[in-house]
């Protein structure tokens, strides 16, 4: 930022972030501290007898030892879904931002509006579409892409598909927002320099839209890795993710220390990935950690 700094300027950023940060600290940070404490409770406690805070760090290795396959699956499925979403979302965001002309807003809403139709309804609609008796499975069986007794539902495929579907708008929106402000002259320069559309996209468009891409990847991957409803509705027990385990720990098994420990393990893993990702993209105006402040 140009210019010198009388006092007002130095407090301005703090004034700007204050309400949001206060909100987060109050309604997210505080409960989180509580949760952190819960993850260190003596695991032998129960609802009726109460829990004793015991620095029980053992909860973490215990949870990890039992549920690492679920964690791995979470990241595996979310990662696969992310790849799929990138393959689908990039052309979509690109087309909306740069090719749609006056249809842009309409298409944008087409991307988001499905979310107005409840999550559950959409997922159930997918069940209809992927049904063993449905036309899609029938077609796939006819062309021998699927064994005669093969199915789509209750398979990893359905889970990844569901994850991709449900979180795709989260990837597309920020990507779109950053593609939309791209300087077209630069894209023209690339085509002029022998880059076909694909190369232009990969070598110029995408790097320039990196802040949006990074944001989209974060918005997609983070919730996707914590999701459990797709696994529950579209998968089978063999597809359950760590979200399902946390759900069951908190609601069914009432093992709160374990639930809390698993939550933190998930968060730590996600944040680890996120920070690595941001580290990689830093210096090129990565939006999330470093901002664009030059």
């Amino acid at each position, binding site marked *: 930022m140009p210019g010198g700094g009388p006092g007002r300027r130095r407090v301005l950023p703090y004034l700007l972030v204050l309400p949001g940060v206060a909100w987060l600290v109050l309604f997210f940070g505080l409960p989180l501290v509580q949760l952190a404490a819960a993850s260190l409770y003596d695991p032998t406690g129960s609802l009726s007898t109460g829990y004793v805070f015991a620095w029980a760090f053992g909860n973490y290795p215990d949870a990890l030892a039992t549920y690492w396959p679920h964690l791995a699956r979470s990241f595996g499925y979310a990662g696969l879904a992310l790849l799929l979403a990138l393959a689908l979302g990039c052309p979509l965001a690109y087309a909306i931002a740069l090719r749609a002309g006056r249809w842009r807003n309409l298409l944008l809403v087409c991307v988001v509006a499905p979310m107005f139709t409840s999550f559950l309804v959409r997922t159930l609609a997918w069940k209809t579409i992927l049904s063993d008796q449905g036309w899609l499975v029938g077609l796939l069986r006819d062309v021998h892409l699927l064994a005669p007794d093969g199915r789509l539902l209750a398979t990893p495929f359905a889970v990844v598909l569901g994850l991709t579907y449900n979180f795709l708008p989260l990837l597309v929106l920020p990507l779109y927002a950053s593609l939309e402000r791209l300087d077209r002259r630069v894209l*023209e*320069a690339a085509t002029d*320099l022998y880059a076909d559309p694909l190369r232009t996209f990969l070598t110029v468009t995408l*790097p320039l839209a990196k802040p949006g891409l990074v944001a989209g990847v974060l918005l997609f991957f983070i919730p996707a890795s914590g999701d459990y409803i797709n696994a529950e509705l579209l998968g089978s027990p063999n597809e359950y993710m760590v979200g399902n385990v946390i759900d069951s720990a908190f609601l069914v098994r009432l093992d709160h220390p374990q639930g809390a420990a698993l939550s933190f393990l998930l968060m730590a893993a996600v944040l680890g990935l996120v920070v690595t990702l941001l580290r990689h993209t830093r210096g090129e105006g990565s939006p999330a950690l470093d901002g664009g402040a030059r």
Partner: protein
Amino acid sequence: MPDDDPPGGDLHLVDLSKRFGRVTAVDSVSLTVPQGSYFALLGASGCGKTTTLRMVAGLERPTGGRVLLGDRDLTGLRPYRRPVNTVFQSYALFPHLDVFDNVAFGLRRRGVREVPEQVRRMLALVQLDGYERRRPGQLSGGQQQRVALARALVNRPRVLLLDEPLAALDLTLRRQMQGELKRLQTDLGTTFVHVTHDQEEAMTLADTVAVLHAGRVEQLGAPADLYDHPASAFVATFLGQCNLLAAEAAGTAGDEVAVTAYGLRLAVPADRARADRGAVHLGVRPEKLRLAGTADEVPAGHQQIPAVVTDVTYLGSGTRYLLRTGWGGELSAYTVNDGTGARLPVGAAVLAHWVPRHAFLLPRDPVERAAAPAGEPVGAPG
């Protein structure tokens, strides 16, 4: 990819037009750029130069007409399929790439070998060695433009389009780059189409100059022809400064055309008249106008107009005088500061005189449509 193309050929624009909504930016332009020539598109701001160039590059789809390279119709071709490169008016550098990678971009897309050598050579040429690792945002305007130039030139295209490539450079560097451009063009035999609003640049570099006006080609020819024998008032004033006197021509008599302007009877050689009857412009360039203190000093056979000096501008290598004529018109005269002759003071009464061969006649619309009103000096000596 350009390397697989059949060899170039002349570049033909056939009836090329471009409309943006109700604005007609380019209005059925037809011209031929001979292969290997240095061609300049000269015109005022907003006359459609950039748009024409963009259509050649394939970045703008023509509303009508065609672009041909030799026998090949480029009109529908995508930009990256055309053996054509552009130096953009706004640079359009890749902000996420450093200088080196910007210049290497085209080479890499074509899978060329020896990228580093070629890039280094090119950067040296535009005097940017040592700047390889800077991002465009860390360069000055002129430095950016040089990167843009290097980025296009390094590809050695069949046709290089340059959109005011030197506008942001200082004169020293511009001279030097002009020299380099000309040399490169001659060495490579590439066709250069150079858009500029600097007529000196156009005249220095180009084999052929096309003057564009309001989306149409106003005149096309060798620089000297355009300067010495312009086809219209617009060209006359756009290519250097010109004094235009509104006059009436009375037809050819012998090898001269007699004209009357503001009560003065003057004559112009017939071969320098583009009109010999009715409303005409009599044009004399400022540097052809000489100033005498008394009638004795005016050589025989010269035409003359009495006037008063109203302004003197020192321009380093020369001096520009503004003169007011008896009828209130303004004339501009330019003398070179070669050390002879004292400077005239403001208010001095002088006789502006010229050799008849140095004047020319142009048709004049009864309603003026030239860029500047007649009788006023426009433009400057090259």
